[in-house]
């Protein structure tokens, strides 16, 4: 069901497809290698450390620190209706990074590198089909069927 993930999805088929099902249910998941225990976010099926091919999902807090961000004004196909939008890269507390939009709990003028944020599962409410993503929010923001970030 990975086709659920993203406003535009280019990779409907992947060994970590269940990531999107978990996201729909409000859980943000990383991957852990069943042999050496190495973890990854975003998740990956095949271990980067030992090349083992079996993994399990584990839930991550999504909490982290903003590494950088930009407001995109010139947008690609599929994003015309939400332009402009601000994306950020987060250093996650448990390791790994995530890239996402800012949600409405963080006003644009408050965005600054080094601020604490949380990656929170979200669902596109206005669509009939299931479409999930995650957004960057104030720490402690819980998963909710909240307003869109734009």
């Amino acid at each position, binding site marked *: 069901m990975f086709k659920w993930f993203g*406003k535009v999805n280019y990779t409907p088929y992947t060994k970590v497809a269940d990531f999107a099902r978990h996201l729909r249910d409000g859980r943000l998941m990383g991957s852990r290698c069943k042999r050496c225990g190495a973890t990854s976010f975003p998740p990956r099926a095949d271990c980067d450390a030992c090349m083992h091919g079996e993994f399990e999902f584990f839930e991550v807090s999504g909490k982290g620190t903003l590494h950088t*961000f*930009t407001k995109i004004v*010139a947008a*690609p196909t599929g994003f015309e209706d939400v332009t402009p939008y601000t994306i950020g*890269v987060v250093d996650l507390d448990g390791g790994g990074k995530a890239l996402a939009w800012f949600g409405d709990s963080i006003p644009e003028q408050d965005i600054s590198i*080094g601020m604490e944020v949380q990656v929170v599962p979200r669902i596109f409410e206005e669509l009939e089909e299931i479409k999930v993503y995650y957004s960057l929010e104030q720490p402690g923001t819980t998963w909710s069927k909240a307003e869109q970030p734009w």
Partner: protein
Amino acid sequence: MTRVGIIGLGHGVFGRRSDATVQELAFEAFRAAMEDAGIERDAVDASVIGSVPEYHKQRSLAGVVQEYLGLVPKPTWLTEVACASGSAAMRTAWMAIKAGVHDVVAVIGCQKMTELSTPEILALMGRVGEVQWESGFGTTFPGYYAMFAKRHMHEFGTTRDHLLDVAVKNHHYGAMNPLALFRKEITAEKAKASEDVATPFQVYDCCANADGAACVILASEDRAREISSKPVWLSGMGCASATMSVLRRPNLVGLPSAEHAAAQAYAMAGIGPADVKVADVHDCFTIAEIMAYEDLGFCERGEGGPFVAEKQSYIGGKVAVNVDGGLKAKGHPIGATGVSMTYEIAKQLRGEAGERQVPDADVGLTHNVGGIGQYCFVQVLTRD
């Protein structure tokens, strides 16, 4: 193993070339390089074509170029690593000669970027990054480099004016280059009045798509000395990769592939950054040139902004950088760019750069980046 020399140089005008197909652009550069080398086509053993296929209607570009150049049935192949495709062609030709498989190889970088409609360009633009975890959030090419710029500004105090100093410098030199797309000086004030693209970038922080071609003829040392009275040598050849996903990078203030490629090239050439007199670096966005100064060791990490502000990258400074206008003013026909860089630096080493000539240019460097640093090629060029 033999050294590899540059014996022929050719370069067409970069810009919106509504007058020509991609193979016609390739022919202009190839003919000029053959005339420069003073050889006929029977002396060429093979060709390598650097280009990015998704911009062309013609699939499998090497075939149509090879036919149009009249090089059939000699071997040809295409190299693709995004905006570094031209340098990948250089490297594979260099490898073929080093290995003793071929003696003389024509390297042609060529690209038409104006064949696609705006919707087609916008669709391509949405898939520039890693598509599984990043593109679904609407990332763009300027957006990625903008995030490097924001982080660089945060960590090192690099300023908006530092970024624009790069654009002003490159347009200054581009105005003197008859092969360049933009031949006009700009001011920081004009740049600050241009439209936003991705904060902090505005239009003048970004290079422009262009059509164009460049050709370099390479030869083994023996053949180079027979053919040319002024060969320029590929003395250091570095090449490295970095993760496709920026989420797998340790930081976003430099390109690790560039640091690796530079270290290899310097070691092979037996020189250091202080020996480089003239360089063409990959300034696809203003921050990219500032990071290049640092990744190549022209200055310390974080000092790239002051480096350009103090005019250390102008002619007369520590190292003259992008005095052909760079991608910024010369234009960026992505497959041609790497070969165009080698053309410019070889011209400088031959003392043929006209009013842009860097005095005593005996060691030069090219730095060609693919994507957001996923690929980087660094060449050190020397003369006898």
